[in-house]
């Protein structure tokens, strides 16, 4: 294992993580809900849309974040290496997978682990393992 020290940004990572934690804590204390992005989006696609307002508002907040951030500081680069077919396959898998698995990095990874939920721990270990293996295969087996 070789650590990429030039790319390593522990302080901004920790600070950004703490801000994510503040958002999750706020959403739990004020709205009484889990800040799980896949669940919030998925709920908008259900036949009953009674609570569409706050769901759409949360997503709008996420989308507005880079615009608001850009007012105060320069936006860090967002680099997407994958091509369109790969991103479509990835999107489909993320969409189906997060709904069957009832959560993603935010719902299970951040909120679930913060609440010491065994269910979220199992889900997080499963998706992390699958992601590590996938990147190993695409970067070192298929790409050679």
């Amino acid at each position: 294992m070789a650590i990429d020290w030039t790319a390593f940004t522990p302080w901004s990572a920790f600070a950004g993580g703490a801000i994510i934690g503040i958002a999750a804590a706020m959403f739990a204390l004020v709205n009484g809900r889990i800040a799980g992005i896949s669940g919030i989006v998925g709920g908008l696609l259900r036949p009953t849309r009674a609570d569409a307002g706050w769901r759409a508002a949360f997503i709008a907040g996420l989308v507005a974040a880079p615009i608001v951030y850009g007012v105060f500081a320069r936006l860090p680069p967002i680099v997407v290496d994958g091509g369109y077919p790969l991103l479509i396959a990835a999107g489909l898998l993320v969409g189906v997978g997060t709904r069957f698995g009832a959560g993603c990095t935010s719902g299970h990874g951040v909120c679930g682990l913060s609440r010491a939920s065994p269910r979220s721990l199992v889900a997080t270990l499963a998706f992390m393992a699958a992601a590590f293996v996938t990147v190993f295969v695409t970067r070192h087996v298929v790409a050679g």
Partner: protein
Amino acid sequence: MYALFAFVAGLVFGIGLIVSQMASPAKVIGFLDVAGRWDPSLAFVMCGAIAVAAIGFALAGRRPTTLLGTPFLLPTTRIIDARLVGGALLFGIGWGLGGFCPGPAFVALGAGQVKAFVFVAAMLAGMLAFERIEAARTRLATAAPQATVPTSE
């Protein structure tokens, strides 16, 4: 009021994703690529997020209602089954392929990334497919209550 606070939570969440650089798929894949030149940064994102969120959930657990006076709607399910693990595995494969999970994809969309738009469209299609599968399973279960309906549970 409820929706306004949801907007603020989403906004703060998104700013956290930007500051931590988790909104950039290349950064995420750098973390997932343990066999290459590994960037452990994202482990620090999780640590920071969990350290702060855990305090929030502990405080929430001591209150009868939310700060707005509404009831708490936190998940109570404790079932660990094939559905949970299978879904998480599929999600992990998709996350490893593109470097996008749902939150960062919406942030990158807001930053004007066309690729994020395509990813989000595919993700919504995947979520709709889930709703269709669920609806079909419910129909099968109600139409033939005697028959054994194949389920993942």
